């Protein structure tokens, strides 16, 4: 379900792992390649389920996206020294757990700019360190942990599949419009065109 917040902006509802929903602007969401691939052209009926990530993490991620809406197109990693004060504050105010959650969510949503800045920040932690010093910084996983990680990856893949299925379901609904009664079809088409118009006018 999309809800126009203003005449020039489309808002989407995002659902977190707690089942809570919140609004994110289409402009911010378009920074997510995952969203673009699944929902941009067909829209979404109901909240978009990013239920592998909690509300705080998703809000943090989309806070970054909202902030960088007007920045020029992403063109590769930026050196940390070139980050704006806002960017630095954004990263500095996160604790390690939140930082990791943000990387994971950003990676899933395929937000190139945010993922890349996070990764550059991690590489910076290892800069100028020899192997022993790196081992102190990074936690080397045990065999059990590696196995558990594989299971998590599988679970994530299943979640991604679920999201894709939801998108496909929405697409299917769009394709079967002609089966609807004429009046309902007119109304649905009108809604869709309005949404597209609002979406374009925002670009």
């Amino acid at each position: 379900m999309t809800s126009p917040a203003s005449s020039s902006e489309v808002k989407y509802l995002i659902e977190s792992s707690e089942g809570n929903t919140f609004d994110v602007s289409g402009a911010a969401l378009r920074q997510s390649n995952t969203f673009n691939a699944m929902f941009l052209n067909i829209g979404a009926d109901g909240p978009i389920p990013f239920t592998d990530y909690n509300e705080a993490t998703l809000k943090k991620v989309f806070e970054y996206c909202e902030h960088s809406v007007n920045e020029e197109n992403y063109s590769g990693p930026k050196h940390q020294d070139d980050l704006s004060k806002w960017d630095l504050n954004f990263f500095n105010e996160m604790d390690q757990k939140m930082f990791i959650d943000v990387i994971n969510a950003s990676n899933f949503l395929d937000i190139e700019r945010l993922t890349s800045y996070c990764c550059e920040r991690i590489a910076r932690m290892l800069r100028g360190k020899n192997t022993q010093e790196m081992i102190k910084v990074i936690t080397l996983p045990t065999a059990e942990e590696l196995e558990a990680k594989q299971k998590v990856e599988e679970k994530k893949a299943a979640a991604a599949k679920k999201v894709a299925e939801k998108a496909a379901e929405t697409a299917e609904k769009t394709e079967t419009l002609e089966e609807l009664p004429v009046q309902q079809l007119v109304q649905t088409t009108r809604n869709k065109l309005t949404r597209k118009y609002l979406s374009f006018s925002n670009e």
Partner: protein
Amino acid sequence: MSSDFPLLRLPEKALNLVIQCMDYIEIVGFSLASNKTKETVKSLNLQVSPLFLTTEEIIKVHVQRPSRMFWNFYPGGENAGNGPIPVYMPARVTARRGLTREILEYLNPGYSIQKWIDTVQYIFPHPGINCLVFKRDRCKFDMNSLMETIGTAKVNAFFFDDRCGVDCAKMAVRQFPGISRMYARSQNMVETSLYTDILMQNLDVLFLGEGDVIMRMEFDNLLLINSKEIKIRSRDITDKMINQFLKHWIRGSNPRMEFTLLLFPGGRILDANAILRGLNFREAPLDQVRLFTKPATQEPVEIMGGYDIRRVNGSVGTLKIVQDDGRGAVIFCVWN
């Protein structure tokens, strides 16, 4: 956010991005941390080349591309001495990138030099050690031990540098058969008659002399050379010697030779008439430019004009005499 960071639990794409943000010195250090880190780096298919392994007082490794990196392996006190000594377990390793003063130091890293080389060979799909460099009069390290350290990595070239002695060079050639390139620029190797057995090797590239290192070369030794691509820096090669050399070539000597460059330091004026005396040649017009590709290094050479000489087997070689600002050079290339 500075310790216990679960780096390897990041999603694969993010982990790869982190590694791509690191420089190569750090990437090598990172890959030594565990099998998982090593495999992760390998999967990125990063490239380095060429790789030099230098034996001096200590063993050094350096890589030129994508950026210059140097690793120095220092022995502990118990490994000090004149040698030949076995290749030691490093007590200290330093890593430096480019010309920076910033040095990354490893104290008692617990990794042998062999493990270091194996790791670099493994994580960067590298064809081998491009150049094994010898700098001391006598190699400080026992050659068998050096071979073990290099392991299965293929050595492509020798670089006899600085004060490398003839015996050291000969021993290296005996221990590492199958080397295709040899560069001699050691002050202790200017007397080429002392290592005719090396001159006779079927090499792809043989460079004798560079800069201040000017080789002594007798005519008979010139005929012994059996490499494809030859460069000799010498004052001893006279016009008459070149003339005789070409006459021997016509009759079948130096059968593998495809490109020769003779450099004459010290303001030598070449006499074309003396060089060509008694030869049956065809002079190519000066505005005729032919492109020759060196057989081993694949470097292109523009041949403008020159003198074409036909061999008894029908192949044609072009002689080009270059006289530029008092410096003389002779180029001879054989067209296939």
